[in-house]
Each structure stands twice: as structure tokens, then as C-alpha cells.
């Protein structure tokens, strides 16, 4: 089965104000399936928005191809692409009513009046805005505008919906609610979503697959779980969630477990498979993979943050080196700042990167 969207070798360069060249896209390959929710994730300037705009037609590629359903769309103007976008600022037409905004794609196609009105009503219904069609966008709340933008973008039944950081202007609660609704909507509509964000939590919540980008390149593509548990490199590991990184030297193998030591002297148990003594690797431990115990890495609590269900600790290892971050549910023994603790972990939860 071929993918719905197929991007190969996409390149795009910008000239910087100083006259230099900056590669916004530096050879990007990406496939998106017909009913897939794919998130482009990365820090600002990583090229994710450029990639999105190349698909919608507002950026021209310097090289590479974009195929939709097998047809090359790179030469088509935006209005000929069966792709719609939800813009970051919503870009609602301020001089039109909500209903006319929603129906715009049909209006410009010259859809008959009766169909038009039925479709607009249905689209408004779908996003829970029935009855607000007569208002102007300026009379709506931020969340409502978001829904109008969404309704407007799906009314023409695009094969692919592009969303450019659509939730960034909403407050936290509303954002979480919209994340769930968006995912549900995508299921219901059965169309592919390509969602751009710099918010890793958002990416983890909604995506079927996450594409982590940096400096115009794709660092890793995978399911949220893959990305979180098996980051391919330090950048991905650090960008997705909180992470403890330990550059270590493998000292000896003991059956399924190997012992490794940081330069400062912190000793970790890691999976032995494929390891050999004297090798340098980077061990990754998520804060949730560490727990308070009677023995393990000894250190002093420098800061304790109480998060309700969880307790977040920063522990300075006695051996030296950077602080270790720990998230635990073990609230029975609430350690105080300055208290000495021991941190234990399951060696199987340690993820290793070949790079030192």
C-alpha cells in the first residue's frame, strides 16, 4: 500500500539577512498514511512549519518531491491542492459571519445554496457551534474561534488536514480538552492529520507517529512510545520529556546486567546485551524509572517539588556529577531538602545510546 502523502528529499534554503544560507529543509523524507495522525515536533526554526507550508503550497521546494495519492503536487498552487490548513492564528475572515467563514470553501466552489447551507450547519454541529453561525469571529472566545477554524478547514473534506500549532494560543485546560477532541475528530472523519507543534506533551497525547525535527532534518520518526522510550540520540531524548543522561564507561559484564560508571563515579546497572567492557556509551533514565530505596545511588536532596500525585526530587549524587531528576509516587516517606537518599532503578529500563 502506498502512503497518502509521500515526501522525498525535500530541500528548502533561505537567505539570511546577513547574506548567508540557511537550510530550513535539508533532505526530508516522510510518508503519511491515509488515516494517520502525524505530528511534526521540534524547536522553533527546525523546519517543521516550512515542511507543512510546502505541503499546503505556500513554500516552494528547492528540491525533492511531494506526492499526494501518487500524484506530484509540487507545481500546484495552494488553491488546487486537496489539502486544508488550520492556521496558528486561525486566520478567520473578520468581515464575514461564522457561518460564511465555515462555508467559504464551498462558496468559492459555487456549491448550490441548499447543499451549502446543509453542509455549513453540519460542520458547525460537528465542532459544537450550532447556533453561533450568525456571529462575527470577534464575538467568539478563543476556543470557539479554534473550532470555527477547524470546521472551515474540514468542510471541503480534504484528504489531508494540516494543523499549524493550532492550540498554542489556548490556555492549558482548554488545550488539553481540544487535544482529545481533535484526536476524536480525526478518527470520526477518517482523514490524515499532520500536526505541527513544539509542545512534546501535545505530540505524545495525540499522535499515531511523531516526527522529531532539528535544523531541517528528521532526527527520528516513531510512535510516541518509541520516541519516549527509545530515543535515537541525545537530542531526541532531551527534547521529549525530562531525562537523566549518564555518559558512562562499561566496567564489567555480570550475566544479563553490566556495571557502568560515570567519570564522577556514579555506578549504574545497565542491560548487558551487546555490551563489552571498556566501551563508552550514554545511559538514559527517565525520572519515573528511578525510585527511592534502601540502597543504590547515594545522594542528597537539593530540592523537592510536591506535585499532588507525584513527588519530584532533585538529587545531587554523593560521587559528584550533574543532579539527577526523580519522579516518584512513593509519598509515604517524604524526604526533606538536605536529606541523604538512595536511588534504585531496574536495569532493563535503561536505554543506551552508542554515542558517548
Amino acid at each position, binding site marked *: 500500500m502506498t502512503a497518502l502523502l509521500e515526501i522525498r528529499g525535500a530541500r528548502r534554503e533561505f537567505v539570511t539577512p546577513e547574506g548567508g544560507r540557511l537550510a530550513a529543509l535539508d533532505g526530508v523524507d516522510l510518508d503519511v498514511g491515509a488515516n494517520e495522525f502525524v505530528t511534526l515536533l521540534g524547536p522553533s526554526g527546525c523546519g517543521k512549519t516550512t515542511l507543512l507550508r510546502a505541503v499546503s503550497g505556500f513554500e516552494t521546494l528547492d528540491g525533492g518531491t511531494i506526492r499526494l495519492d501518487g500524484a506530484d503536487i509540487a507545481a500546484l498552487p495552494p488553491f488546487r491542492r486537496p489539502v486544508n490548513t488550520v492556521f496558528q*492564528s486561525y486566520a478567520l475572515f473578520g468581515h464575514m459571519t461564522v457561518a460564511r467563514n465555515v462555508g467559504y470553501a464551498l462558496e468559492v466552489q459555487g456549491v448550490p445554496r441548499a447543499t451549502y447551507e446543509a453542509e455549513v450547519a453540519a460542520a458547525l454541529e460537528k465542532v459544537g457551534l450550532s447556533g453561533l453561525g450568525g456571529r462575527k469571529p470577534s464575538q467568539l472566545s478563543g476556543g470557539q474561534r479554534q473550532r470555527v477554524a477547524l470546521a472551515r478547514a474540514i468542510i471541503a473534506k480534504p484528504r489531508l488536514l494540516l494543523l499549524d500549532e493550532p492550540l498554542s494560543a489556548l490556555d492549558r485546560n482548554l488545550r488539553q480538552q481540544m487535544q482529545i477532541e481533535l484526536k476524536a475528530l480525526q478518527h470520526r472523519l477518517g482523514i490524515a492529520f499532520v500536526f505541527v507543534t513544539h509542545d512534546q506533551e501535545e505530540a505524545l497525547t495525540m499522535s499515531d507517529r511523531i516526527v522529531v525535527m532539528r535544523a531541517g532534518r528528521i532526527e527520528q520518526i516513531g510512535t510516541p512510545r518509541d520516541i519516549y522510550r527509545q530515543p535515537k540520540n541525545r537530542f531526541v531524548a532531551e527534547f521529549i520529556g525530562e531525562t537523566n543522561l549518564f555518559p558512562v564507561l562499561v566496567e564489567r559484564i555480570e550475566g544479563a546486567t553490566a556495571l557502568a560508571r560515570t567519570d564522577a563515579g556514579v555506578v549504574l546497572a545497565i542491560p548487558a546485551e551487546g555490551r563489552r567492557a571498556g566501551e563508552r556509551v550514554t545511559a538514559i533514565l527517565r525520572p519515573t524509572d528511578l525510585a527511592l530505596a534502601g540502597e543504590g545511588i547515594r545522594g542528597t536532596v537539593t530540592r523537592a517539588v510536591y506535585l499532588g500525585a507525584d513527588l519530584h526530587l532533585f538529587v545531587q549524587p554523593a560521587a559528584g556529577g550533574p543532579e539527577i531528576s526523580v519522579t516518584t509516587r512513593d509519598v509515604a516517606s517524604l524526604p526533606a531538602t538536605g536529606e541523604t537518599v538512595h536511588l534504585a532503578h531496574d536495569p532493563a529500563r535503561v536505554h543506551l545510546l552508542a554515542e558517548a
Partner: protein
Amino acid sequence: MRRQSVILGLLLGPVTLFLGVFFLLPLLIIALFSVLTPGLYGGVEWAFYHWNYGRVFGWADGITEIYEPVYLSILFRSLGFAAMTVGICLLLCYPVAFWVSRLPQRWRLVFLFLITLPFFSSLIVRLYAWLLILKPSGLLNGVLMATGLVEAPLEILYTPAAVVLGMVYVMIPFMFLPLYGAIDNLDRAQVEASLDLGATRVQTFVKVMLPQTLPGIMGGAVIVFIPSVGNFIVPDVLGGAKGLMIGNLVEQQFLSARNWPFGAALSMIIMSVVLVVLLTAVTRARKRSDTR
């Protein structure tokens, strides 16, 4: 309560005084003069006299005052010229304003400065410069003939074309600035949204850009239309004073016919007509942008 109204009065006082002195009072004087009897040697005699309007609209005694349809036809002619000036200014300024709004900041400032440059010199001087350019032995014909584009000098000076050219030249900055303001504020994202939703470039222009820049268009049109209706210097200098504009008529009443009340009545008529035209245009435009 009392104290508050005193303070309010003090606060609003200067504004009221300003509007009163510079706007209302002159208007009232014109309105009053327009219904007084013309003095034999200019000025007014303090007796009510309605024939200043009658001469224009069709009632007159036929002896001292004669109704002549020529006044209304001059008014309509002037309105036509003004409308044409607005239209041409708009057609010229819209694409240029668009282009300028896309220039880098530095060049935009340079361009805006250039646009306002004519204001630094007198209108009369600039019109005489056009006279020198347009006359048969002038710069334009010199260039055209030197390059072999024309055999004989083009007769532009003292034609209606020269009048329109002059009016457009004089009024272009007044159209450009509000238009540029509106176009510069245009939400690019909305333009992209329209294209993204399948609207062609033409549809996008008509349905999104035009309505969004409508305040600028209306603003520019109003600012250009009003002085264009009353302009008499351009037709005099570049048109050879052969076609009478309503502004000429007013000037003539004060400066050669010594009939102040008739001049005042004509001014009142111009003001009312302009007001009606503008209100109609603005309400129509607003209504149209609301409906599909």
C-alpha cells in the same frame, strides 16, 4: 453631581470651542450668507433672499434672477470629474501600495517619504511644472519626438485629459496613504487561508482582500473626492479654463461677480451633494461586505 458636570464642562470646553471656531462657525456663516441679498458691491444686505437657490433649482423671478440649468450641469460635470479622479487614483495606487507594503522596511520608508515629497512645494508651482512638461514644446513632447515615438507634438495641454492627469497627480498622495495603511495592515494569514480553502487569486482578492482594505479604499476615496469636486485650479491651469467646474463658479462669485450669497449658496449645495454621495457610497459598501 453639580461639581461633576462643571468638570465635564471644563474638559469638553476646549474641544467644543475648537470645533465651534474652526468648523461650525464658518459653516453657519456660509449657511446664513446663502439666504441673504447680494450687496451691489460684494458683501451682503441683511434681508432674506431665497433666489440664490432658486437660480440653481428652478424657481426665479425671471427678472433679477433667472433660472439656468447650466449650474446643475456644471455640478454634475464636476462630480463626474471627481469620480473619475477617485477611480484612476484607486487603480493606480492599489497595486503600488501592495508592492510597497512588500518592500523591506527601509525601502518602504524611502517610498513613503517620496510620496509625501510633493507636499513640500506649492501646488501652484507643481501645476506650472506640469504645464511646462505638457506644452507642445515641453519635456514630454521633446522626449516623444526625440525617440521617434510621435511625428508631431501631442496636443495634451488644455484638454480634458490634461485636467484629469493634473487632478490625479494632485490627489494621488491622498489616496495612497490611507490605502497603504489598510493594505499594510492586511492579514496575510487570511489571504493564505482563502487560497488554502480553494479560492482562486481573483476570488481571494474580491472576497477577502477587497473587503479587508475597504476602510482604506473608502477613506482614500472620500479624501480625494471632496477636494476634487471643488478643485478649480487644475482646470484653470492645465485645462485652459475652457471647462467650467463648480469650484470656478464659486470662485467667480467672490472674485469677479461680487455675489457672495450666490457663492455661499453654491458652496452649501456642493457640501450637501458631496455629503449625500459619500453617505450613500459608505452605506452601500458596508452593506455589501456583510452579505454573501
